[in-house]
């Protein structure tokens, strides 16, 4: 019987999901340190209860633990994300104006993201950065897919409104 208590299975679960747990918490609270801690906490709990949690359940278990950890405990901070070097693919002859404009846009996007409600931002970033499907995000958050689609829709809408200054 495969069991999370076995070291190699536990390590495998850790390597597969720890990054997403980290991002999940980071998107919510914008606090890197807390996100690291959440990963540790969630997987320690998993280890402690390894006999009770099947490998299939391990994934949603760690998300739930991590999510509950800071629920109503810490205040969300600004989510500082890095941007890949450029927005466009051909960057051979970029004018200073273009670069300037791009920099401005990134700034606006950052601000807009931080202005989003926590659950919309988390959904948006899990999808855009981690490439998570709505179904997966729904499982992590423990809500319906429909709810995630709504969050995504609203996130896009308010990001655009924020950026375009509507």
């Amino acid at each position, binding site marked *: 019987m495969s069991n999370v*208590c076995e070291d190699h299975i536990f*390590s495998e679960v*850790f*390597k597969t999901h*720890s*990054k997403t747990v*980290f*991002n999940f918490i*980071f*998107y919510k609270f914008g606090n*890197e340190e807390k*996100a*690291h801690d959440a*990963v*540790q906490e969630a*997987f*320690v709990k998993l*280890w*402690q*209860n*390894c*006999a*009770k949690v099947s490998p299939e359940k391990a994934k949603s278990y760690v998300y739930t633990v991590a999510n509950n950890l800071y629920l109503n405990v810490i205040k969300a901070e600004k989510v*500082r*994300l*890095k*941007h*890949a070097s*450029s*927005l*466009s693919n051909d960057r051979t002859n970029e004018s200073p104006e273009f670069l300037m404009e791009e920099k401005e*846009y*990134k700034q606006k*996007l950052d601000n807009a993201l931080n202005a989003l409600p926590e659950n919309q931002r988390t959904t*948006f*970033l899990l*999808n*855009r*950065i*981690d490439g998570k*499907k*709505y179904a997966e995000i729904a499982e992590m958050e423990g809500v319906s897919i*429909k709810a*995630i*689609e*709504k969050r*995504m*829709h609203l996130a*896009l*809408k308010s*990001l*655009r409104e924020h*950026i*375009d200054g509507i």
Partner: protein
Amino acid sequence: MQEYYLAKWLSGELSEEELREFENSQAYASYKKLKDASSSLMAPEFNPDVALQRLKEEHINDVPKVITLNPFRKFLRIAAVIAVLLAGSYFYVNTLNEKIGTAYAEHSEVMLPDNSKIFLNADSQISFDKKNWDNKRNVDLKGEAFFKVAKGKKFTVSTDFGTVAVLGTQFNVENRKGFFEVTCYEGLVSVNYNNKESKLPAGTSFLVINGEIVDNGMPNGSIPSWMNNESSFESIPLKYVFAELERQFNIKVSSKNIDTNLLFTGSFNNTDLNMALKSISTPSKTNFNVEGDNVLFYAGNTPK
């Protein structure tokens, strides 16, 4: 356009028609740019290997797994169950009545909370509620006992046959299989048998054999004869005499060719079996034979 079409667009779930409509909308360019820009976003560095290393060093080595915790939990569970059982049985036992009994060939004396005394004849049992004694002086009796009741509230003796109620007196109650006798030695005793109340003044007795009330003589002395280690009978069927003999000496009595319903008047000593046997056989004109704990009574020349 369907509900949450922006989400559907991002996940590529829009129909061609919807997509065309969306692409022609004024806002499309903004959303397109947002989609492209957000795809280049990056989360902070996170190295799973480093994190796993840290987890193992800082936490897991010090953290016992549930597997090792389990025995303790199990222990707690068992401990809790035992505690509940103990507490439960404590309360249960506490509510139980006080019980005292005697075996064959055994007598006993019981002091009740109000200093009333009960003398138990052989093979008899009483039980009473010690806690509630002051409110309700009631004793359940199986077998035979002599009561010396201290003055006070009504004192009742409950038997399978009926209830005996007194205020303060001395009386004897015997209830055996098919046999119920109440003898009053002092004061006044009220016997409730088959919902009929009979008053027994001192020096009288009330006897029921096989469901029939029998008139019998006056008791001798001021205490039952068995209190003086003697069992006496007045016109009592032989079988009850034999039964009493069995109780007093812890023996097995059987009979052959004898009508055990014949009435017997007489007494036997409760300490000397040989004497007792003679005391029964002579007046009843029977013979007896003893073999260990077995006694056989037979009539005339009946062989063994």
